[in-house]
């Protein structure tokens, strides 16, 4: 896997061809080889989708009678730091994959280039608008989304019934959430009630403190994303943040949220399946985790799940607000060093890798949702009852802004949460901690304080 100087994309099969290339028409026997380097990422079906894309592209090229062959050069996955170091040393990955959060700094570091051709691409025609927003930054498309997640609120139906909810009440809940009629506060009240009445041991549990589900709650409580797209700045909103922290403080005080909230990360699924949890916030993938915790066949679990639980979007922070869902998708990026000659091939690989059936392969392997409508039209999709049922959430799903000042925002926000949960800090104290640390860590030009 050692190749270091293939960034122009062209490399001939033998030295003799170098002369041939300029004058003679392409010789049938010596194909032009185009090596496309790809960053390794073997989660789900990503790598096999690549392989399929390369195969398909070569078939297309043959069919078109072009005397060109594309070859995949798989480079090992590396951390961000090394990605930059390698790039600075001249070793780029033509196609790499990273979180949607990373657009900002990768662009800053000169690693990627815009791929506005995506707007014209056939496969992305059926991509919902909110997902287009994810891929855009400063007016250009920089990444090609390749899978998606949503963050549902899993609800313990049995416990609701014990608390006196009727079947109809329960069935109507998702709709009330959609309308903004049933809010976070309602949720917390019920969670409190459940714990006080010892209907469940836990009121609200998530798949981890630093997971996006918690950020989802925070965003809902603030009623907005902490990001101003136009100015491309992070918004640091005192009231919103204080509201959020108050929510958590109240949860902790009332017992709906426990001190060991963060530690329930690995066991929360199991507690939910055991009926010990009133509300669980996770990703669509949490369904799989619950299934594994349940330990029976897919079908048996599905039956149990639908009999004993339900799910909605994350409710709005206040009456009449919008419900939400947050995701952290990975995007394909194209290296800034891919030149015009090579770009068509790179483009085609990305498009082919996003073929509906390949999206579906990945969904099956990973539990994440296909991003395009066409992907969701794959007949295999409707067989996956749960995924199928949550697919509507994609329309409400947002991602975190790809802003340079945002990762620190998240980190410090969580420190504030820890202070509340573990050290018994008040919302005001948590806010102070957050503000002070955030201010000292970021370039204040990048932030709107209000």
């Amino acid at each position: 896997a050692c190749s270091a100087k293939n960034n122009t994309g062209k490399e001939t099969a033998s030295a003799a061809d170098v002369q041939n290339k300029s004058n003679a028409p392409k010789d049938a026997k010596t194909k032009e080889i185009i090596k496309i380097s790809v960053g390794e990422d073997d989660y789900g079906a990503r790598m096999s989708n690549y392989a399929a894309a390369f195969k398909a592209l070569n078939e297309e090229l043959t069919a078109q009678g072009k005397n060109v062959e594309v070859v995949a050069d798989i480079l090992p996955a590396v951390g961000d730091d090394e990605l930059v170091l390698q790039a600075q040393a001249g070793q780029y990955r033509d196609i790499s994959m990273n979180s949607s959060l990373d657009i900002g700094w990768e662009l800053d570091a000169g690693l990627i280039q815009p791929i506005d051709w995506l707007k014209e691409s056939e496969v992305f025609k059926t991509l919902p608008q909110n997902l287009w927003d994810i891929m855009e930054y400063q007016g250009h498309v920089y990444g090609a989304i390749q899978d998606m997640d949503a963050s549902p609120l899993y609800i313990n139906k049995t416990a609701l019934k014990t608390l006196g909810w009727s079947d109809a009440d329960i069935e109507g809940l998702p709709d009330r959430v959609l309308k903004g009629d049933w809010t976070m506060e309602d949720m917390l009240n019920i969670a409190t009630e459940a714990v006080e009445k010892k209907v469940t041991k836990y009121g609200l549990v998530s798949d981890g403190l630093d997971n996006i589900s918690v950020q989802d709650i925070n965003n809902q409580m603030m009623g907005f994303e902490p990001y101003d797209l136009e100015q491309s700045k992070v918004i640091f909103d005192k009231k919103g943040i204080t509201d959020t922290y108050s929510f958590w403080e109240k949860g902790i005080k009332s017992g709906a949220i426990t001190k060991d909230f963060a530690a329930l990360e690995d066991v929360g699924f199991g507690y939910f399946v055991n009926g010990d949890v009133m509300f669980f916030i996770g990703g669509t993938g949490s369904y799989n985790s619950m299934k594994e915790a349940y330990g029976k066949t897919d079908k048996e679990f599905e039956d149990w799940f639908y009999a004993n639980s339900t799910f909605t979007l994350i409710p709005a922070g206040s009456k009449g607000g919008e419900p939400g869902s947050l995701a952290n998708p990975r995007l394909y990026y194209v290296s800034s060093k891919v030149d015009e000659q090579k770009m068509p091939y790179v483009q085609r690989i990305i498009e082919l890798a996003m073929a509906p059936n390949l999206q579906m392969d990945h969904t099956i392997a990973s539990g994440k949702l296909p991003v395009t409508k066409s992907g969701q039209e794959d007949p295999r999709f409707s067989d996956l009852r749960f995924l199928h049922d949550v697919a509507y959430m994609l329309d409400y799903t947002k991602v975190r802004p790809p802003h340079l000042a945002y990762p620190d925002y998240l980190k410090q926000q969580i420190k504030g949460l820890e202070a509340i949960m573990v050290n018994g800090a008040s919302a005001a104290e948590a806010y102070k901690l957050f503000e002070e640390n955030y201010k000292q860590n970021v370039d204040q030009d990048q932030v709107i304080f209000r």
Partner: protein
Amino acid sequence: MNLARLKKKSYPYLFLAPFAILTLLFFVIPAFATIWMSTTNLDRKMKADFIGLGNFRQILADINLLPIIKITLIYVFFSLILTVAFSLLLAICTQYLVKNKRIGALYRVIWLIPSTMPGLVYVVFWKYIFNPTPGGFANKVIMYFGLEQPVSWFNEAGLLIIIVAGVISGASGGMILFSASINSIPEDIYKAARVDGAKDRSIIKDIILPALKWPIMYVTVTSTIGLFASYNFILLATGGGPVFDTTTLALYGYQQAFNRLEYGYGAAISVIVVIISLLLTLLLFRIFDFNKLIRPPRIED
């Protein structure tokens, strides 16, 4: 003649040279590079602009600095005291007090167990044992004995657990060094002391400890340095949390460099760590009267 003497005097250095070069390449240059880096604003974009003492100014203004230094000092101080005390006690027990040398050796071998397994395995298990949920082992135990609420061990006593575990796994090195030194005290000396009416306590205090002065200094100095520089263990166990409650200076530097990818800032913190540990080392040298310890050679030429 003079040439021969020169040759004779210099050849040990020739032996050391290749290793000196390797050290230089592998350790000294990176050290200097770190210092250089601490004067730049190198971050994830991997572009380094010289900003002078900017990072250091920023560190001094860092609102977390004081609490972190406090935690660092607590951590280093107690870990150090306990490590040295503990390895001394172990060495003295197994090498001197336990008269049956076989049992003493066996006991020392048992202390090798911690090093047979990857450290991560332990951390995973401690996390399991001290899991704050009712499913954690320690919580199961205390709840079995009637406690209602599970205890958030790492939150309540994170630093304590980290120190204790670190001490237990760190004591074996010192113990062996001390054992070797105790072992090299001639038996006659013990005999004389016993005849002179010395109890174990006095033999330890008056005979063994003075002979261990140099090893104790060494262990103290290296432990101080090592403790100041180490973060791996805390990172795995608590990640420095909750909030900054178990964050030491080195861990803070690590987080700045490798989580926030603020390499320059992280490097500056590392430099401060190094400066503090060097200052403490000098202090320790003074306390232990280093110059006296380096006796002049009794073979002359």
